[in-house]
């Protein structure tokens, strides 16, 4: 059988890959997708724990994560559309209004 460790390591790896995407991609949509990837890595952890601890709570939390992810995607994409309308660009490195 596979131990819980394996799932956790897998999810840690996926999470880190998601972090790469967030850090290096110069397209906001891909950044958002990388965040989804990170969320899913966490989901995997929850489900694995739920399975190995025999508790429903992990699954319920994943359910909520999905709901929140849906909301986040909707709002995030809406913001991206607005940003694109104003700046004609999706590159996060070009958006530096917060720069001193």
């Amino acid at each position, binding site marked *: *059988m*596979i*131990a*819980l*460790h*394996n799932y956790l*390591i*897998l999810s*840690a*790896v*996926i*999470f*880190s*890959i998601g972090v*790469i*995407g967030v*850090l*290096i*991609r*110069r397209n906001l*949509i*891909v950044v958002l*997708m*990388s965040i*989804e*990837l990170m969320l*899913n890595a966490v*989901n*995997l952890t929850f*489900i*694995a724990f*739920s*399975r*190995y*601890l*025999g508790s429903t709570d992990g*699954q*319920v939390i*994943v*359910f*909520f994560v999905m*709901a*929140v*992810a*849906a*909301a*986040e*995607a*909707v*709002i995030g*994409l*809406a*913001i*991206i*559309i*607005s940003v*694109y*309308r104003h700046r004609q660009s*999706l*590159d996060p490195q070009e958006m530096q209004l917060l720069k001193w």
Partner: protein
Amino acid sequence: MDTASFIFYLLATLLVIASLLVVFLRNVVHCAMALVTALLLIAVMFVTLHAPMLCVLQVMVYAGAIMVLFLFVIMFLNPGALEQQRGLWWGFGTLLAMMLAGVLVPLVATSDLPADPVAATELFGSPEMLAKSLFSDYVLPFEIASVLLLVAIIGAVVLAKREN
């Protein structure tokens, strides 16, 4: 290697590959398709973890709705040019994330965790079980989640609507 391990390692390998594709492909639509693949693989993994309901939800919500939304927006904006070259930052970010993995993996690997799953009942992961849990213990979070979704809808409409 037994069947379960084989399936796990197969899925894990594919999942890592798909995730890497999400991050490193240059065409946005290809990224999205790689992400869809990754999500579907995770859904399969959910099944192996006795969470069929969440598998279906994963497919319906993530793959079926959220990712279609992503594609919709990609097509809506249709940014013609490929991404610009990433330069130095590219290597730095990757390095940083690899370091993160380098810390996270030993962290989870060394913790004291159950090695074998709890024997699952017939009902484990079924819609009934999830529903019972959701509508009794988690009814308040559930309602809050619904309000959150409502707010998200309104917010999206307000944000994406054009002012005239």
